[in-house]
Structures are given as structure tokens and as C-alpha cells.
């Protein structure tokens, strides 16, 4: 794997290989010295143009557990925030000898630009770009589903026949996009439930089933329900009348929680708006994978960095 730019471009084989590798990595985390020497001497740069402590620390922890050197280039206080172009930053990172760049950017396509531009030779991992994709989030979600559903050894398996319902702001969600593509690649059936204002145009051409009624969607007994965060800036832009109505129509409240079968997984990419898209009881229930999603995130990111950097050395080096 040269870069990880989108879940859409991941093959089934590669996705399974990443999850299987993550399975091995998760054992490392349990050791007394949770560290592998696999990426000793490699430099991983985390380049975050948007604040996201969760994703950034997850990647940095993953890199450190593989003994890589980690350089943090956070947007705040660096030349990045002073209007330095992506090109100049990339050339600086190239000069520092970066082997991999983990990039989070508000502009869709920025990681691809970095990978295609020739400004830098490093592998590029997309850690979330605009409203485009967030492939490691989708990988960790699929990994979390696989671990829960396939109790025992899940190695080598995909998600064939698994039913996943994604609820909420699909329009602005890179997590939803990555999940839709990856889950499909892995054989799962994806349904969406959202008001039409929060569904992207052309969604009818995507491999998904669409519901405009959450309760109807839940009647189809999904194996996993993924609740998406409603961002505060959507509240006043006429996507829906008000948060109360949103919560009543589209939130996973206690009543809907009780209607779920016992083995339905409840997922949320975080951070959660408790009481809006998800009730406290739903978030904290034993069916919720929210907490293990964090640990799984580190394992998946270890696997991605490992597969990207430990392979055959690139010709140019």
C-alpha cells in the first residue's frame, strides 16, 4: 500500500488484510511493553489543518507503538496557520525526511493533491478531508463490527450479509461516505436514514437503501446502527426546523433503544451530542461500541502504518 486516500479505492483483499493485521496489533497493546520495533528509523508526520485531538493522538500513539519517530505539525501556531501553502509545507516535510504524512484537512481532496503532486515522496494517509472521506474511521468501524459479530477468530472474514444502518447528517459526513464504500466492499448491506435535506444529491446512484423514517428503518433489524453527529452550524441553516424536532425524528432515544434487539450494535464516530442524536442510555449501553472503537482505532492505524511503511523500500530511497 503506497497511500491510503479513500475507502472507495480499497479492495476487499486489502481491507481484510488491514483488519487482520490490526487483529495482531491489538494483542501488542495488551503487553506490558506495548511496543514493536517494526518502524524503527521511520518518520511519521501528523499534519493536522483541523483540530482533532482524538484522531491525531490515535495516529501518533499507533506510530509510537511501532517505534516510529513522530513529528507533529499542528495547524495552530505553525507556519501552516500563517497561510503557508500546502506545497511549501509538503516540501518542508520532504526535507525533514518524512516517510509517511498523516493529513487532516478541511479541503476535500487535499491528501490526494499531496500524494499526486510530486512535492513529497512520502506515503500519505488521509485522516479526514473536508466532506470527502475518513478511511481509517471506516476501517475501525468495520473492524469493530467484525470483532463483535464474529465472536471467536474473525481473521480473514468480511462482513457479508451484515446489515448496517447509518443515521443523520450524511450530506456533510466524510465518515458516512467512507463507511458506505467500505461496508459495501466488504459485503454488508448499508441503509441510510435521514431527512432529505441531509442526504447528498445523486444518492440514488449509491449502493444504499434510503429511509425517510427512522422507525421503519429500525424495523428492518439492522445488525449495527451508526449515529452521526449533528454539527452546531447545521442547526440554523434550514436543514431541519430545530434540534428538538431533529431529536424526536432522527435521534436514538430511549424508546428506540428499547425497541432494538439485544445484539444490535450502537456506533458513533464521536464526539457525541448526548440528548440530540443519541441518548445517554444508548451511548452507555452494553450494545454501544463507542469505547472499544477508540482502542480499535489505534490497532487499525498501526496496521495501516505498518503495511504502508514496513514493506519493500521505495525505489527512490
Amino acid at each position, binding site marked *: 500500500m503506497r497511500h491510503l486516500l479513500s475507502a472507495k479505492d480499497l479492495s476487499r483483499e486489502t481491507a481484510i488484510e488491514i483488519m487482520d493485521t490490526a487483529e495482531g496489533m491489538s494483542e501488542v497493546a495488551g503487553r506490558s511493553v506495548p511496543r514493536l520495533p517494526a518502524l524503527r528509523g521511520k518518520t511519521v508526520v501528523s499534519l493536522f489543518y483541523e483540530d482533532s485531538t482524538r484522531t491525531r493522538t490515535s495516529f501518533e500513539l499507533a506510530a509510537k507503538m511501532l517505534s516510529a519517530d513522530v513529528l507533529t505539525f499542528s495547524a495552530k501556531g505553525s507556519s501552516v496557520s500563517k497561510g503557508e501553502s500546502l506545497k511549501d509545507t509538503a516540501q518542508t516535510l520532504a526535507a525533514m525526511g518524512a516517510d509517511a504524512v498523516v493529513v487532516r*484537512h478541511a479541503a*476535500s*481532496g487535499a491528501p490526494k*493533491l499531496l500524494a499526486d503532486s510530486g512535492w513529497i515522496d512520502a506515503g500519505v494517509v488521509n485522516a479526514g*478531508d473536508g*466532506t*470527502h472521506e475518513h478511511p481509517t474511521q471506516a476501517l475501525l468501524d468495520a473492524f469493530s463490527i467484525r470483532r463483535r459479530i464474529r465472536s471467536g477468530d474473525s481473521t480473514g472474514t468480511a462482513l457479508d450479509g451484515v446489515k448496517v444502518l447509518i443515521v443523520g447528517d450524511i450530506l456533510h459526513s466524510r465518515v458516512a461516505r467512507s463507511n458506505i464504500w467500505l461496508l459495501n466492499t466488504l459485503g454488508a448491506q448499508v441503509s441510510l436514514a435521514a431527512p432529505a435535506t441531509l442526504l447528498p444529491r*445523486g444518492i440514488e*446512484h449509491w449502493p444504499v437503501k434510503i429511509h425517510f423514517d427512522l422507525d421503519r428503518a429500525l424495523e428492518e433489524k439492522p445488525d449495527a446502527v451508526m449515529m452521526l453527529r449533528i454539527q452546531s452550524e447545521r442547526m440554523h441553516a434550514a436543514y431541519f426546523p430545530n434540534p428538538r424536532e431533529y431529536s424526536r425524528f432522527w435521534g436514538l432515544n430511549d424508546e428506540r433503544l428499547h425497541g432494538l434487539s439485544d445484539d444490535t450494535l450502537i456506533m458513533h464516530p464521536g464526539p457525541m451530542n448526548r440528548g440530540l442524536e443519541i441518548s445517554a442510555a444508548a451511548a452507555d449501553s452494553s450494545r454501544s461500541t463507542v469505547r472499544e472503537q477508540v482502542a480499535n482505532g489505534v490497532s487499525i492505524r498501526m496496521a495501516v502504518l505498518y503495511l504502508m511503511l514496513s514493506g519493500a523500500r521505495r525505489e527512490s530511497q
Partner: protein
Amino acid sequence: MTRLLFRGATLSSGERTDILVSEGRILELGTGLNDAKAELVDTNGLLALTGLVDLHTHLREPGFEQSETVLSGSRAAAVGGYTVIHAMANTSPVADTAGVVEQVHSLGVEAGLVEVRPVGAVTAGLAGEALAEIGAMARSRAKVRVFSDDGRCVFNSQLMRRALEYVKSFDGVIAQHAQDPNLTEGAQMNEGALNSELGLAGWPAAAEEAIIARDVLLAGESGARLHVCHVSTAGSVDLLRWAKARGILVTAEATPHHLLLTEETARGYDSRFKVNPPLRTSEDVAALREGLRDGTIDAIATDHAPHPLESKETEWQAAAFGMVGLESALSVVHAAMVETGEFGWTQLEAVMSTQPAGIGRVEGHPLRIAAGEPAEIVFYDPEARSEFEASRLRGKSSNSPFFGMTLPGKVVATVHRGRLTVKDGEVVEPSDSKAENGMVTNG
């Protein structure tokens, strides 16, 4: 003034003829012409068309001279086969007073390569609030006839209606950039399945079509002339067809890029393909071609929009909208319309030269290549074929979407006011040609 004898060209009608030019006019057509005093130019195998006229050029001067100047844009136009270009008003200061349009006009005269006709702003400062000095610009030395807030839409319906009515008195035309600003806030590319996948905010077809629908109704009521800039959707073509059938005085232009490229080019996030209005779907491209073929669309306009490298060498969302197009226009229309069999050279000549000249009320532009007409001619090699490269550009900026594409044809020579402004594909500056003329006389 030089006499020029072009030996053996083919007119758009297919007729083969020599063309004798003198004193800025076409003196004589016919085969086997001879003139001892004329400079002989071999144009065998070349197509002779009336000089191209662009209704939509961004020259960037005054204010953004790092992107383009009147001189550099004139060079780009001349090598593209143009003899007349219309310089859009979104400069700094905005071309909303007689002073600015006269300045741009004089810079064009000084450059001496094409006729530069300034477009006046419709509203002061392009702010969409009050009318600009439309009458003063019309009566100035620049004789402005085309008014546009291009880059922005005249969104206020009452103001648009008044503007249409006001320009009627001197046979002017309002050229509308049809874009509902509310529907396109933050828009990055065509709205459809692809923008959703790429995570780039969509620019819906309805944002263009809603404005065109409103404007043709306003033009119909006022009996004034409306011109629609850079039509980009199939729905817009339908609306225009409807309006024309009702006798509304509306004309429309399409750009070369909207005739050849689709939204699929956005996949690589290469911002050379970022333009406003955005590249659309292949169905839209087919509808534009059909509209051009059946006369619903009257003109090709380049929307030549130069930008410095740093405005394009960046994330898609941060990149500027627009592409340069003067140097590639004829080849692109050749590829999109003639090679595909949509239409022939007479229709190409109409939509790239005589019809836009009529819309802009350009004086001194020939109706056809015939004795007595002004000598505004482009000589084009239709058999040439090459990969379009940066070396073909003569403007200051290089944001062309066509690099690497194999395109047909090449402009070999351009004649403006009876003078060769382009010879063997290279610009001939007025000063060079004086020197040359001197040598001819001495010889």
C-alpha cells in the same frame, strides 16, 4: 499601408480563392490574382474565416496585471485567431465609469493587435445595488454596448429589469452571469452524484436556470436585449429555446470548455478544471452542442480567465475559478463541433465571428470574406493536429485545462485592420511590422 496577397485559401463555403487586402479592406477575391506591390503569403490548404470575436474575455487590467494585461491578452487573442475581444468589467477599479472603459480601450489601441471593446459594469462596483454609469460609458470613446457584472449575477429583479430597459435607448445589451447566489454559496463543482462522492459542495443547475427563466421574462416584457453568458446546462438550453420561440430578444453564448469537458475531470482534484459555471455532465455537453447547432446558442465565448500559478497550485476549495481559453478556442470548437459532425465551417464562422460581432454591435467587422469588407481574417490549418502545450499560450497565465490533449487545427495567420497580427503562428507586434514594411518599401 501594406498590400497583402493571400494565395490559395479556402473559404468556409468551401470555395477556393486568393484574397487581396489593401488599406484595411478586402480589395478583391478570385483565383490567380496578381499584384506587384503586394506581399505574397502562401495560404494553400488553409481555411480563411472572418476574424474571431470574443464576447467574454477577462483581461485583468487595471488591477490584476500579474495575471494578464491588455497587451498580453491581446497577444493571446491574436494567436487564437481573434480580431475583436470584449474585456470584462471585473477589474480594479471596476469598469463602471467612462474613465475606466476609455483607459482599457486606449490600452487596446496601443497594443494594436485586436480591437479591445470594454464591457461596462451593470451596477456600480459590481455591488448589485445601483446602476453604474451606463449612459456615460455608452457615449464614451469606448462606445460600450455590452454591459455585464460578470463574475457576479445581477440578482435583484427590479434592478435587472431597469438595466434591461435603460440600455435599450442606445441598443445596448445586458450580458448576464446567471447564478443564484443563495443556491451556490460555497459551491465548488456541478451538483450531482460525483460532487457528493468527492465531497465538494454542489452548484445546482437550477441556480443557473432559475435566473435565465426570470431574465427572459423580464426581457420579454421590456422588449430589451438580453445576452446569457456561459450557458452550461441542458435545462438552460431548453429555456432559451422556449424564449426564442416566443420572440424574446435573447442571445446566448457557450464556452469551448463546456463543449468538450465534463465534471469527471474533477476526480483528480486538479484545480485547472475548476471553473464557474462548473463543468457539467455529458448530457449537458450534448445539449449545448445541439443548442449551438440549431441556433439556440448564438455564440462561442471563451470566458478567458487568467490566474497566477499560486491560485491554482493548491487545494481545490482554495483555488480560483477559471481557465484561459483564447489560444485554444478555435481548436476546441473544431474538435467539439466540426470533427463530431455537428456542423461545418460556415456555422463555426457564424458562432465564433459574425454572430458575436452582431450581439456586441461591433462596427467594422466583416459579414463575410468578400470584396469591400473590412480585412479581418484568420487563416487556419484544419489538417494540423498536435498535443496542446504551454508553448501555445501567449498570455501571462498558464491555467489551461487542455494541456496534454491532442487537438486539431492551428491558427497560422491573423489579419486585423489589413495588417498581419499573426504570421506563421507567431504574433507580429505593430512595431515589428512597421520595420518590415520599411524593408519592403526599400526593396
